[in-house]
């Protein structure tokens, strides 16, 4: 069980959070303009990386805020945590 450093509440047990899949997938502004393939790309395609992965998490049983987590999926180490709308760390 991870300990996740919620950017609003601080360190809490993983059981207070819910994972929300890959981060930085932006909903297309004009979905109607997209072909089936382009829409499917947004709707279904997700990466499943062994290594550094950018993820969305929500502090369900806390502040209910969504935020981003950088996690190494090979050892579950959390490298960084940052708020929605903030730029992902480059290092």
């Amino acid at each position, binding site marked *: *069980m*991870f*300990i996740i450093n919620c950017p609003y509440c601080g360190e809490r047990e993983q059981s207070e959070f*819910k994972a*929300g899949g890959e981060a930085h997938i*932006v*909903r297309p502004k*004009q*979905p*109607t303009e*997209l072909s*089936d393939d382009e*829409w*499917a790309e947004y*709707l279904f395609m997700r990466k499943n990386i062994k290594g550094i992965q950018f993820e*969305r998490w*929500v502090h*369900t049983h806390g502040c*209910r*805020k*969504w935020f981003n987590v950088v996690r190494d999926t090979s*050892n*579950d180490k959390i490298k960084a945590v940052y708020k*929605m*709308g903030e730029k992902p760390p480059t290092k």
Partner: protein
Amino acid sequence: MTKNLRVKKSNLIDETYKVSFKFNGITYYGYKGDTLASALLANDIHLVGRSFKYHRPRGIMTAGSEEPNAIVQLHNNTSRTEPNVRATEIEIYEGLEASSQNCWPSVNFDVGGINNFLSPVLPAGFYYKTFMWPASFWEKYEYFIRKSAGLGKSPTEPDPDIYEHKYIHCDVLVIGAGVSGIVAAKTSAKNGYKTLLVDEKPYLGGSTIYQNSEHFKINNQISSSWLEKEINEIKKIENLEIKTRTSVAAYHGYNFLLARENLTDHMPLEQRKNKIRHRLLKIRAKKVITATGSLERPLIFDNNDRPGILLSSAIEKYASLYGVACGEKNVLFTNNDSAYETAISLYQKGINIEAIVDNREEIDSKLIKEIEKNNIKVYKGYTVVDTSGYKRINKVSIMQLSKDGQKVIGSKISISCDCLGISGGWTPAVHLFTQSGGKLKFRDEDQVFIPNIYPSDQISIGSCNGDFTLDEILSTVPKTLKEFLNLKKTDYEDLEIKSSFNKSKRNIWLLPSDKVIGKTKPFVDYQNDATAKDIKLALREGFRSIEHVKRYTTTGMGTDQGKLGNMHALGIIAETAGSKMGELGTTTFRPPYTPLTFGTIVGRNVGEYFDIFRKTPIHAWHIENKAEFENVGQWKRAWYYPKKGENMHDAVQRESKAARDSAGILDASTLGKIDIQGTDASEFLNRVYTNAWSKLAIGKCRYGLMLNEDGMVYDDGVTTRLDENHYIMTTTTGGAATVLGKLEDYLQTEWPELDVYLTSVTDHYATVSVCGPYSKKIVSRVIPDLDFSDENFPHMSFKDAKIGKIKCRVMRISFTGEHSYEINVQANYGKSVWEKCMEAGKEFNITPYGTETMHLLRAEKGFIIVGQDTDATMTPIDLQMDWIVSKKKYDFIGKRSLYRSDTIREDRKQLVGLLTENPNDVLEEGAQIVADMNKSPVEMLGHVTSSYYSPNLKKSIALGVVRNGKNMMGQKLIIPMEDKQINVTVADPVFLDKENKRLNA
């Protein structure tokens, strides 16, 4: 008949405290401090069980949690019965009753023993190969297999014991209280770390605590005496908590560990009342020191499983710690110095040793010299090739090993004995380390896996780290601790250590025999009866991955998880396949380290505490009025209100009729309610619902359908505009939390620019829904100040009102198709408003109805229930609800998905009404729908989603999803049932009042 094999007093055993217990119905005596195994051995009993597959007689093999054979059933046929208890761990208490498992009629005469002689036809994978064909026979095979397999019996009565969970936070957790763990715990605690020390045994000190030999000394004191002083000291340290009988079951990431603290299993049953039996400790440690020690390896040779064959270290432990001799004519068989430690202990206590057989040829060892000085015969360069004795070993046959160790040479020598101690060296107990994600490395010189890469702030010390001898441990551990705990110095810098142990070892995974392997039974996994022969067969049949060989041969899959034999299995695979041990890897070590009871896992979450349940503010009234309840999510909802003599059908028919003919009243408080405010609230609703919201006037209500981004229906409900920038949304009862979560997700991540605030107010309001032709009369009596005329208060509108001084919101909305009102009040007034409505409706036959009637009434109107008539594959178009999908809106969640190539297919499953040929035939929900019974295979077109007998229409009605159903109106279809076929006609899903006249009636 029974002998007394007690040899000397011991610190652990209280010889003034005699304990009687029963084993297989016979009463025996032991002493307080004995385990069941030590007490049985003291009574000269080795045979305790039968093996899993061949039903071979099996005895006590070890003296700890790694025991594969001596597993027993406790207190058979009582509520406290427990299978698979290791006799080597359970401490005896007055009145303990244990019995053998896996044998019938008795452990001494077991019919299944025939399997031993059938073993040539029971090879690895026998069950896979034989019982898979023909497939239809599986049910019969299974009955037979289960009957003969039984590993103990599970209890049939509720568990009378209490269990609990506890969280512990500490700076340092030390696992294992052997010499390394004691040194670590003391060092950690004395340097200010809040420390927790746990050990699975009832005593502290590991195996060093009974190491009473001149050959092992610390600062010129015998190692056990030195350690005893250390233990006495640590007991006084304040920030050190010590928990014995506490076994760490799992080591997860981020130093989160689960341990089971055993509090009452050693007590007589009558003393356990109202006490907590097991406590599951959920430990979060900043740092973890693993000092779990090592497990002695057996040796793999023909017939190495007979009762009377034990690990050499177990024989020493029984002698030194429990004062019990395992036999009177002992032979030891070893490939390293450990067996000589045992021999010296036995010799000191006057226990006879016939001979020692050593795989090694020339060894310069002080321990061997001492043994030889005492005229004990040592066969160097020899190996055991066979044993005999069915229920107890009576002879070993030995032969000389060839130089390369691959063959045996010379002639056979027989030694008679009643006990054989075997030692194949030591395996570090790295189970917890690897569970935590640690990576191992293989050390070639002594063929062991040791910790290499640590995934978290932890360290392994002592023999679980591959430091086996006392001098290695006490020179390495202090240095490791200094670095790990950031210390300048420890108390253990200048210890003077004497250790006579010679580390040389001659490792041969499968010892050679004078017979061909097919004629031998060298057991690798004792509990599952997997032999070296089976492993070789698996390799011959093409299995290569260690994980596959494990599953095919079942090696390591017993309740002991192969603690003894897994290394040998790896070794034999590597040798046979010609690969290197280190490259082969290991099978995965999974929690729990030793089995946990279900009680421990569930803790207090049993019975009514299994899950939380939610009650509406009107719940007490439903109870008083004898409602039956239904679980909806976590809610208890009134299901129906049976009157005397009524069954469910009768009650629902009566309620349904009353709701349409006079008046019905429903507790709708469980519906999800979300308060939505902000200047962009209208725009937000526009984006989340399929229909248009910007033009909804203040004071009006509108039904909305919510989709997932994939276009599938997700939730529905009525939302009311309370003010310019203020809405109240209702959701389905089960969907409330997920809808709120989803809306928050979009607001926070996709549309943070919108000025919208969401608050869950589900629990803040009680909702009383009154419907039927008399509903207006009833509600206007309850709220006399409100103008209920259709002009002032039309369908789909809302009014603020007051009942006396109580503020309420009244919505004129309908889920039944009847003229109806929903009164929302602050939750604590819910019951009184309900009662007021009941009072006002008395003369109009107001009838409380539950969820079942609600479902029936809405089905008559063809209204869907999300989650019953839909699953995650239904679009609004599939539901024939095209009318609710806005064509004008540029975008809403899921819009683009409604014209993907898949969602525009004509032959998708679509919601239709179904009418049965015989109006009294009520379909079963979930029943399959077909068109042609003669087609092979019969094609399934869909299924029934809702089905009722309608008292208002006096016929059976149903909703279902049917492929291309939209274009099948009037067509005949078939519902095949077990005993008959029901003919149905596809119909409009709206069965009653298509013109919606009743809404204004």
